[in-house]
């Protein structure tokens, strides 16, 4: 049975594909990172919606929490990396 | 680190553990307690003693106001993006501030970034460089209402 939550899931998938377009096109590295940041935020939302879909929200929320925290560390590391290393635009 | 901060840290982490695990039997509680104590013991970062403590009560009052600002400016940006003409006028704004304490400046910069339409790019203790997307959000920035609010929260010398 297809519920509204399937529709939500589909919408977020399409949104992630839109962000992937930005990641592929660039034009600068920063655009790609911005796009990926958007993807990871969407992914956290996707996890919670998938959790409601499978009726096992408490399990998926745990994963989402861990991912959110580490995602933030990763984002900061990328920012630091880009600042220390002068980058050519590509 | 004084024993008092150690105990406070342990209690805070233990509370977080109980929230996250949701199990109240002796086994999980004891694991959580030892884990919290261990982490509090390992983290002996010196506290920033020169910073005043956060005025938590007034901060709680500040958050709903911030949320309302976020809603307002989000609707503004939504209108801009959905407009076929895309009426944007991006610019960099130099924003001198004299909030004084670093915590207040960080809160200001974070609030400005959280509000869609304005993003903090550079921060120092006396000046921020902000990228504003359109005229309305840069006018909002010029009115300095956010800085006044934060100055009220911190009771510092935020002359505007």
């Amino acid at each position, binding site marked *: *049975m*297809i519920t509204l939550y*399937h529709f939500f*899931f*589909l919408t977020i*998938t399409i949104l*992630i*594909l839109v962000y*992937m377009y930005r*990641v*592929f096109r660039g034009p600068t*590295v920063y655009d*790609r*990172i911005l796009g*990926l940041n958007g*993807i*990871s935020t969407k*992914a956290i939302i*996707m*996890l919670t919606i*998938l959790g409601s*879909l*499978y009726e096992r929200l408490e*399990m*998926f929320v*745990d*994963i989402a929490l*861990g*991912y959110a925290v*580490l*995602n933030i*560390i*990763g984002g900061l*590391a*990328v920012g630091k*990396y*880009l600042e*220390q*290393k002068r*980058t*050519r635009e*590509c | 680190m004084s024993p008092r901060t150690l105990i406070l840290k342990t209690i805070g982490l233990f509370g977080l553990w109980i929230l996250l695990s949701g199990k109240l039997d002796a086994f999980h509680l004891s694991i959580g307690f030892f884990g919290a104590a261990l982490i509090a*013991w*390992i983290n*002996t970062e010196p506290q920033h003693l020169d910073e005043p403590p956060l005025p938590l009560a007034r901060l709680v009052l500040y958050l709903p106001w911030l949320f309302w600002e976020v809603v307002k400016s989000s609707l503004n940006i939504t209108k801009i993006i959905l407009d076929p003409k895309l009426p944007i006028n991006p610019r960099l704004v130099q924003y001198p501030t004299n909030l004084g304490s670093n915590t207040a400046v960080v809160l200001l910069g974070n609030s400005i970034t959280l509000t869609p339409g304005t993003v903090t790019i550079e921060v120092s203790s006396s000046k921020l460089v902000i990228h504003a997307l359109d005229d309305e959000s840069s006018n909002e920035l010029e009115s300095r209402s956010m800085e006044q609010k934060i100055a009220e929260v911190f009771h510092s010398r935020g002359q505007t």
Partner: protein
Amino acid sequence: MTLFDDYLLLLLSVVTALGAVFVRDLLSGVLTLAAYSFFLALLWAGLGAVDVAFTEAVVGAGLSTLFFLVALFLTSHQEEVHKRLQVRMVTLGSLGVLGFLLLFGSVDLPVVGDPESLPSKHVSSHYLRKSLEETDTPNVVTAVLADYRGFDTLGETTVIFTAGIGCWMLLRRRDDSAT
């Protein structure tokens, strides 16, 4: 209707995997790889393997990205494009053969959840029936990974023991005078 989500997730992981290969910039490649392993984690979670999913999300998407970044600190992050046609053809050909073999092998795999398939008839029924009373672990996959396989393959415990020692070495309190 779980197949619906599985197909969407598979589509996303294929797109991100292709992205990781085709993006010319190494940094973006690393980040796309992180997104890819996250969707993989979602697939694991969909199959009910909580702690595999958790490990994949935390280690695959989070920590290994950090390690790749640290490695990138030491190199240039532009990829050099090899233009030699011959090498590319060999790579393409061998990858094609490998892909064909993998797809060919997947034809014989049992359907997920099929009670008549060979793996379901062996020890799995014992695990499914007894794992809660034998190991006190609510999730069967976790019980198999951590309890049943923890000691029959010695590697599992050795790895965890070594990781514990490593954590201790990194996190132990140093004297304030030493640092």
